[in-house]
């Protein structure tokens, strides 16, 4: 089938302003949008730049705006999209080239919330720390995050305030705060209680719709807020 792509192009090395590249490609209905982008790059215009790697929705490289919604290009089949597909870079981060945005500010926010298990209790070598399936299930959902930035760049609070830690970092904090083995929940909650923390969330719920991993992001944020209000994890 033939589809049309309108891709927002911008190479700061030579373009003074972004422009729309228009392409027509021949694809199979079961092809991913990523395959269609490759068709453009490999057969029509080698200068088109985008990130991708795994091509099946687990590495988080190819989050972009597809028909106005944040999606992974490798998880959208063209048969489920319109005959003309509009593709833009994620909003809120500097565009480096075409669909590639500067991810450094995103990873900086991620690092802010201490995204690692802290537990200085002496470990018994040769055996695991015990954790029941029920304890594990409290944070299982948030372990699925692939740091693609789809949620954060869909959030109006983040658009208006780029210093807001954003939903992805709260999801990452949640993954540790509610892990029975972790001992640094209080520190993370303290960080999220500050002015650029979790209270910037206005429950718009764009993040829920944006997550390609199906994480219940609003629920995770609500649990963090509740832990702050009731001072109890």
């Amino acid at each position, binding site marked *: 089938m033939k589809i049309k792509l309108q891709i927002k192009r911008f*190479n*700061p*090395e*030579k373009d003074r302003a972004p422009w729309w590249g228009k392409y027509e490609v021949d694809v199979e209905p*079961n092809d*991913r949008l990523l395959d269609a982008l490759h068709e453009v*790059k*490999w*057969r029509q*215009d*080698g*200068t088109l*730049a*985008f*990130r*991708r*790697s*795994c*091509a*099946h*929705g*687990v*590495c*988080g*490289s190819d989050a972009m705006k597809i028909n106005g919604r944040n999606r992974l290009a490798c998880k959208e*089949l063209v048969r489920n999209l319109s005959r003309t597909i509009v593709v833009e870079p994620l909003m809120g981060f500097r565009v*480096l*080239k*075409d669909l590639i945005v500067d*991810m450094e500010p995103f*990873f900086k926010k991620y*690092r802010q919330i*201490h*995204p*690692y*298990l802290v*537990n200085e209790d002496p*470990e018994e*070598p*040769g*055996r*695991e*720390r*015990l*954790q*029941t*399936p029920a*304890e*594990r299930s409290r*944070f*299982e959902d948030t*372990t*699925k995050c*692939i*740091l693609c930035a789809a949620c954060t760049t869909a959030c109006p609070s983040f658009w208006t305030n780029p210093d807001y830690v954003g939903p992805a970092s709260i999801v990452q904090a949640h993954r*540790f705060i509610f*892990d029975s*083995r*972790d001992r640094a929940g209080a520190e993370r909650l303290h960080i999220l209680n500050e002015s650029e923390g979790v209270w910037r969330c206005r429950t718009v719920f764009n993040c829920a719709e944006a997550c390609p991993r*199906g994480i219940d992001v609003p629920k995770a944020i609500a649990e963090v807020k509740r832990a702050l209000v009731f001072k109890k994890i």
Partner: protein
Amino acid sequence: MTIPTHRFEALVVGGGGAGLYAALTLSREGIPTAVLSKLYPTRSHTGAAQGGIGAALGNTEEDHPEWHMYDTVKGSDYLADQDAVEILCREAIETVYELEHLGLPFNRTPEGKIDQRRFGGHTREQGKAPVRRACYAADRTGHMILQTLYQQCIRRQVRFFDEFHVLDLVLEEGSGGRRCAGVVAMDLASGELHLFHAQAVLFATGGSGRMFQVTSNAHALTGDGMAVAFRRGIPLEDMEFFQFHPTGIYKMGILLSEACRGEGGVLRNALQERFMERVAPTIKDLAPRDMVSRAIYQEIRQGRGIGGKDYVHLDLTHLGQETLEKKLPDIADFVRTYMGLDPARDLIPVQPTAHYSMGGIPTNVDGEVMQDEKDTPLPGFYAAGECACVSVHGANRLGTNSLVDILVFGRRSGMTMSRYIRHSGWPSLPSQGLDWAQALLERLRNAQGKEKAATLRRELQQEMMESCGVFRREQSLSLLLKKLEVWEGRFLEIGLQDRSRRFNTELLEAIELQNLLVLARVTVASALARTESRGAHAREDYPKRDDENWLKHTLAAGENGKVVLKYKLVVITKFQPQERKY
């Protein structure tokens, strides 16, 4: 023009499981460490590993490292080095516990221990029945490993150079021989070359599955580290052994984990027969991957592919919604997303997909790279993970053992490097270290030929799949070797449209294709020479294993533009080669 130069005691190239575990180990030893990754490390392909890590914890039933060792050796078709396999299976246990302590959220038993499940080729008491050995986190075990190690590297303030692509190895040529002094890499964001000066360099650059048309491998897996090492005179070991995973999504190649069959899924042909019962009467669908992939092709050849086509069905319909959602949630999601099918109700079309390179840069059990058949180490140069060949997988890797490999040998490499760095001092940087990389970029940036890298790559992938896939024979391999020469010639005639510096991914893809071409030539040359069938290397013209002549590792080196093959013996300690039956 001055080239930015960085100095780190330890330099790790590759941000997957092996690289990050090495970096974490080095930083815990107090060694200033940098990681170069052509992606953001969390995008590495370790994250796509699904099923589990094999370790004989014995949490749900009796198990022993010796049983794991036996299975691995037998699975390897007796080509693995048994001293290395013994270390792999023994240290798997402490490594899993260490990962748990670092935060990995394993699935748990009701008592709170790490849960374990069945996987292909893993058995109790040397082949009597399948055993629960794979420690797992749903069907996202690799994702959890990658996340956990990245998190701990952040905690230890490992320095990351994200989106830096390695182009060359810098070697100091002294009177006492060669020594590794660093690498040259391109910063993808700016297109600039950077020089990294280091006392010790680890390559943990992953596999090369993108040389095949249907593959489970990420686009990034173009064998860069292997190709760079090969160009600098390091031989590549056992490259003819490339694993095809039996259950890739039809045409797309996306992996459906062996855990599907570990949890009870079965393969069916057009007649609805569970054909693995015929091939491996004891462990059936949980036979090793080489055997299952061949069995699928046999069904197809005998007209029992679905609708006469080139695929069979994976049947998960009897597992029940709860098992699917709790233990195979991502798999269920892939099937729904990419096939529009419901795994609880529908049969899933699958075909073998190029999955894993058993071969690679030869190393010993400490991660040190061996530069010849006499096992002479190249000081300061290390390799671990899929790009390396220890060899623990021999001619066919067992499921879960790739994760065991990256963890055990990533960690061991980190330890070896930290010991080496303490006494090695700094190598000097040769003045011509940048020359090759500079010339390459110069040429490609101005390339105005008529060939397209994408077209060449497509031809390469199709022909490799056709003639160097699950089944091989002399005539088609010889023909392929000739075509490879032609393609290498055509590569010199390519033209690029993108002349810009920043994120020139067209340039990057050309460099990657050059690496794939080199590795394909090594693979085909090694496969053509090996006139026997062993593990994943199935020669239709030589259908039997030939221990008398071929119980040895291939070492393929580049000499004056030719691939020269040498061989070295397999280390056999506890298990003498036997006929492989399951």
